[in-house]
């Protein structure tokens, strides 16, 4: 228990006075204070685990025995972060496949159609698997609720998945080409919605690491999706057809890096969740892979192998970004600091008469 951690306790001054008065003539045994049951604050445990030196001093806050205020999601990382990646990949691939179809790039069109359908099929399996009652997955379509991103997403998926599936089936079998093309075009319209809504899905929770990024997450996710879709295009298309995939991958990867940086800068204390532990490792690795992939895609314009490697790096970077964001949300929901500190700051600012914008951020005089 450090002095700093006791900071918010208004009784601290009184306690010291009493200690001095009562124990003035005898040595204070070390156990004396240990007997005080104190509500949890920023305890020494976390401080010891922190590797980097904090640039700003640890904010003072109080909590109930260090217990989290909000509940961490019960979602499994492999299912849900995996779905975030695969859904984005499918959505962006469908856009690429439609463009390839319209501009006469058959191999790019075929590869991305099959990739999109495969990714969305695995996504659906992962989503159903993650339910507490998988047999009741069809309950998702009982209602359409605009207040529930998951409900909206279920309906988007039930429009998108059959279209993507029809496009891929037609590409594989060579039958029903018109239905295949119609499916590809419908997929290109619904695909971006699949990629974008997942940002709202995460942000519409009390998880600080996700909600504090509610303005940026949809852009981060479509950028990441474009990087992944472009990466898939670079993997499946010959050099003669790969140019659009290359542009999409490079633009998506670059935007992903920029938006992620911008998002963390706006998050305040919550950005720490993106820099600590597993989330930090995932995010840093993702950034390295995405950056390298984008660079290799630009430089490898004349090499099939370098292009394919760039595609692989962009795909891996996109996947790790999703796992990193997922993990950062988990970290932020398990530590009361990320809930209490921003809320307390908001409350104190309101009490001081500073304007609080409708979105909760503070406008200083």
């Amino acid at each position, binding site marked *: 228990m450090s002095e700093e951690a006791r900071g918010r306790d208004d009784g601290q001054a009184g306690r010291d006075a009493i200690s001095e008065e009562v124990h003035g003539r005898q040595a204070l045994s070390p156990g004396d204070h240990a007997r005080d049951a*104190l509500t949890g604050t920023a305890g020494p445990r976390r401080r010891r685990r922190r590797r980097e030196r904090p640039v700003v001093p640890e904010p003072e806050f109080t909590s109930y*025995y260090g217990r989290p205020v*909000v509940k961490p999601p019960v979602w499994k990382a492999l299912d849900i972060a995996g779905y975030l990646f695969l859904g984005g990949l499918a959505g962006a691939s469908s856009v690429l496949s439609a463009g390839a179809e319209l501009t006469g790039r058959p191999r790019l069109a075929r590869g991305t159609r099959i990739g999109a359908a495969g990714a969305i099929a695995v996504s659906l399996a992962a989503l159903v698997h993650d339910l507490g*009652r998988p047999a009741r997955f069809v309950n998702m379509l009982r209602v359409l609720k605009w207040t529930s991103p998951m409900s909206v997403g279920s309906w988007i998926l039930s429009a998108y998945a059959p279209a993507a599936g029809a496009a891929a089936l037609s590409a594989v079998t060579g039958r029903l080409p018109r239905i295949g093309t119609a499916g590809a075009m419908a997929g290109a319209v619904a695909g971006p919605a699949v990629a974008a809504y997942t940002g709202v899905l995460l942000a*519409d929770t009390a998880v600080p690491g996700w909600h504090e990024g*509610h303005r940026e997450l949809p852009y981060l996710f479509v950028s990441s999706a474009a990087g992944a879709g472009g990466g898939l295009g670079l993997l499946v298309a010959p050099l003669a057809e790969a140019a659009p995939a290359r542009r999409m991958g490079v*633009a998506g990867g670059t935007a992903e890096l920029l938006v992620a940086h911008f998002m963390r800068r706006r998050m305040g204390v919550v950005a720490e969740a993106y820099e600590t532990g597993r989330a930090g490792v995932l995010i840093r690795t993702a950034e390295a892979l995405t950056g390298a992939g984008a660079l290799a895609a630009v430089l490898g314009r004349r090499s099939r192998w370098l292009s394919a490697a760039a595609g692989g790096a962009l795909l891996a970077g996109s996947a790790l970004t999703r796992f990193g964001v997922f993990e950062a949300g988990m970290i932020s929901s398990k530590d009361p600091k990320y809930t209490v500190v921003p809320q307390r700051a908001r409350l104190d600012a309101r009490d001081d008469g500073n304007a609080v914008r409708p979105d909760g951020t503070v406008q200083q005089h």
Partner: protein
Amino acid sequence: MAERMGFFTDTSVCIGCKACEVACKEWNAIPEDGLNFTGMSYDNTERLGADSWRHVAFIEQRKPLARQEPGVDHEGPVPPLGTPPDLAPMNPMTPGEGGDLRWLMSSDVCKHCTVAACLDVCPTGALFRTEFGTVVVQSDVCNGCGYCIPACPFGVLGQRKDDGRAWKCTLCYDRIGDGLEPACAKACPTDSIQYGPLDELRERAAARVTTLNDAGVDDARLYLADTDDGIGGAGAFFLLLDDPEVYGLPPDPIATTRDLPAMWRHAALAAAGLLGAGLLAFAGRRR
């Protein structure tokens, strides 16, 4: 629509008996969820969740409960056992200064928010608002998607592991419909948990906090009683004796669905951007 019903939990008279926890478990047939010894004062329930719909928090503080004037004084340390009374700086005739330690207890429960994030985000419609203005999960509809769990700004809901579904306080929907009070309020021996029409409870709470403040308990304050907070006011609100975060409650909770229109706009823009950028990638040179 019946009158809106709710809880007023007056923590200033809570004695930490946990009768509310027991009564809730008994009435609602909630399974056992671990027999732990946490060392967190007398709190071995730890938090609200799928199998704890009432949770009594215990907080030990070196802080006077109010301005108290015991009229006696003492100096020096507590003497070792066996010290003759006349040598002791403090003895039963000169008791120590009172009021330097206080033990806060508070029975937490689902807040039955006016703007309930859990209800908003539920994709199946399993969560619904009752005629009493309370929020209840229909367990025969819930498919265990788990979205309500991180959506709740208070961390109230939990998932029952072997069952997969989300569970929380129903404000004893099966009792109040018959004119009975919820099990926890019925069992509470000090009326710390009060059940009734919300308007009436708010009036009673305002009077109570004034009484306490006048009596010198400056720390007494109401939590979630205002209707202009981030959840539009709660159906279950509290009288607390310290900051909400001391009790493990969020100081300024918001239902994140408040920001949903903005989020949908951002998502629509982002989706349009992906479609536009994707098609733009086909413009320009062929290689």
